[in-house]
């Protein structure tokens, strides 16, 4: 509904071009791996953004749903099921579990909802670490097959054994996620999410079933969290309970808040920039999390809409000043 100005469109075009050409200039395989991970995280954080940023419900079970996707793909592909079937199946299972846990959890509000989802996340994490027959316990699952090659007549097949192929695979899924999120957010349907976040009694009074709205948002978010988890399992080739741990949820939250809540660019910026920043700051050891903890507090106090929000504010100010001059 808002048409973007030309310079913004150019900027997005440039970023897309840079993303497509990235394998040409990424410095080393290690950094390439970090970038691939970032894109997977970006999908998960975009999903988190839908429920937290747009709908205002602090779901802290996000890593648990990432974990459902990851373990789902791991178990199914190791049982011989094609990745292309396992991935949507795992994401759907994640969404389905969201549909089951959502109704009781969403009866609570505010920090009650946060703690209930966090408690659910901790349970999933504990079960993942102890249910040895299914999850492999604390060791997790190894030797997960790479995504199944896509056969193409006459040419051969697209395989996913090297980094560039994996990168483009993840990039396609990220773009798909962005496309769907864009459709949702810039629509009357998406406005109802923001209505619930902004003023729940009024939303109720104008005919919005706020409970169902929150549930839909939660289920969509969990579908994409599961999708990201499934991609993670197939690309890394191993999963362990840490993919479902609340610490991963906190990491996602850092990406989301620092990048910028309630925008589509924010989660991508956060999920892309911060893991790379974390790698660059590797020498700092435990100081890194200290640094990011401080940054998280400072951001939520001074820039609640994160980096992207701050840039927009600055942009608006410059525009206003220009207008005042002319």
């Amino acid at each position, binding site marked *: *509904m808002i048409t973007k100005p030309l310079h913004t469109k150019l900027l997005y075009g440039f970023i897309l071009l840079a993303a497509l050409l990235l394998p040409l200039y990424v410095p080393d395989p290690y950094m390439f791996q970090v970038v691939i991970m970032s894109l997977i995280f970006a999908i998960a954080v975009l999903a988190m953004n839908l429920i937290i940023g747009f709908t205002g419900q602090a779901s802290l079970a996000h890593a648990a749903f990432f974990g459902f996707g990851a373990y789902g793909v791991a178990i199914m592909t190791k049982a011989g099921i094609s990745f292309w079937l396992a991935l949507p199946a795992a994401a759907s299972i994640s969404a389905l579990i969201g549909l089951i846990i959502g109704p009781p959890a969403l009866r609570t509000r505010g920090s009650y909802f946060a703690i209930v989802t966090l408690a659910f996340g901790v349970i999933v994490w504990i079960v993942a670490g102890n249910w040895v027959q299914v999850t492999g316990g604390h060791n997790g699952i190894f030797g997960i097959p790479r995504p199944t090659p896509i056969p193409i007549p006459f040419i051969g097949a697209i395989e996913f054994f090297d980094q560039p192929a994996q990168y483009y695979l993840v990039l396609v899924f990220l773009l798909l996620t962005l496309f*769907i999120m864009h*459709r*949702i957010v810039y*629509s*009357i*349907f*998406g*406005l*109802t999410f*923001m*209505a619930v*976040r*902004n*003023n729940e*009694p*009024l*939303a*109720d*009074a*104008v*005919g*919005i*079933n*706020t409970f169902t709205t929150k549930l*839909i948002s939660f289920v*969509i978010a969990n579908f994409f969290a599961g999708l990201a988890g499934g991609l993670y399992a197939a690309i890394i080739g191993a999963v362990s309970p840490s993919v479902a741990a609340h610490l991963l949820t906190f990491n996602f939250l850092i990406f989301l808040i620092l990048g910028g809540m309630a925008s589509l660019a924010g989660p991508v910026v956060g999920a892309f920039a911060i893991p790379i920043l974390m790698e660059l700051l590797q020498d700092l050891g435990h100081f890194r999390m200290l640094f990011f903890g401080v940054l998280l507090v400072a951001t939520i106090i001074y820039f609640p809409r994160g980096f992207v929000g701050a840039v927009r504010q600055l942009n608006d100010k410059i525009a206003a000043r220009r207008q005042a001059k002319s």
Partner: protein
Amino acid sequence: MLSVKYLTKNFDGLVAVKELSFDIREGEILAIIGPNGAGKSTVFNLMTGTLAPTSGKVFIHEENITGLKPYQIVKKGVARTFQTTSLFDQLRVIDNMLIAYKWRTRLGFWNTLFHTPAWKSQHDQAARNALETLDFLGLADKALAFIPTLSQEEQKRLAIGIALVCKPKLLLLDEPTGGLIQEETERIALFIKKVRDQGTTVCIIEHKMQMIMGMADRIVVLNYGQKIAEGTPDEIKTNQAVIEAYLGGDVHA
């Protein structure tokens, strides 16, 4: 068109509304007045499903709507505003209108995801309706403005507009001019009459006696959660119980 029958609401032993019955007739402006704490807003909350009554029933056109949730009652053609101006203040004016129009459409997840033909036509229809209503509100040029940039009167107007966008049969207004100055109050009063003239029945809670006397067709007076009088403005002005309830004071005050 709407009848309230023996409505009672207790809060932890305190009786907020007691055995209240009244009817709202098609096409009228009915005012509910009473001193502070008389239970006026509670009555609205009971009628719109925000609160569940302890006993008693609410009917629309003979249909029992007691116990329905607010979002379901809207769909029966009863829209409301809140005492404190309630808007989606993080969003734009047009967004506020579109959100309120949403329940009339089938703009759900799948239609939105695939941009189906149904999505296209309903989306356009929603936008058209929102703009028409904004025009009626005199806010057409503010469609893309954010809420905090609006004046207080414009915000009050928009709050009524949100309730109006789906063309309700009955509009419940909870102190629509609270906090406004005389001149602004008069403009809102004119606007409310215009709403009625378009065919919407209006039920209004107000403090400002003068405005009510000049506008309402009938008045229901509450005190301590009970109805103490009902009638035309002229009857109410001379009603002994009403004058006493207002501490023997001047009802015109």
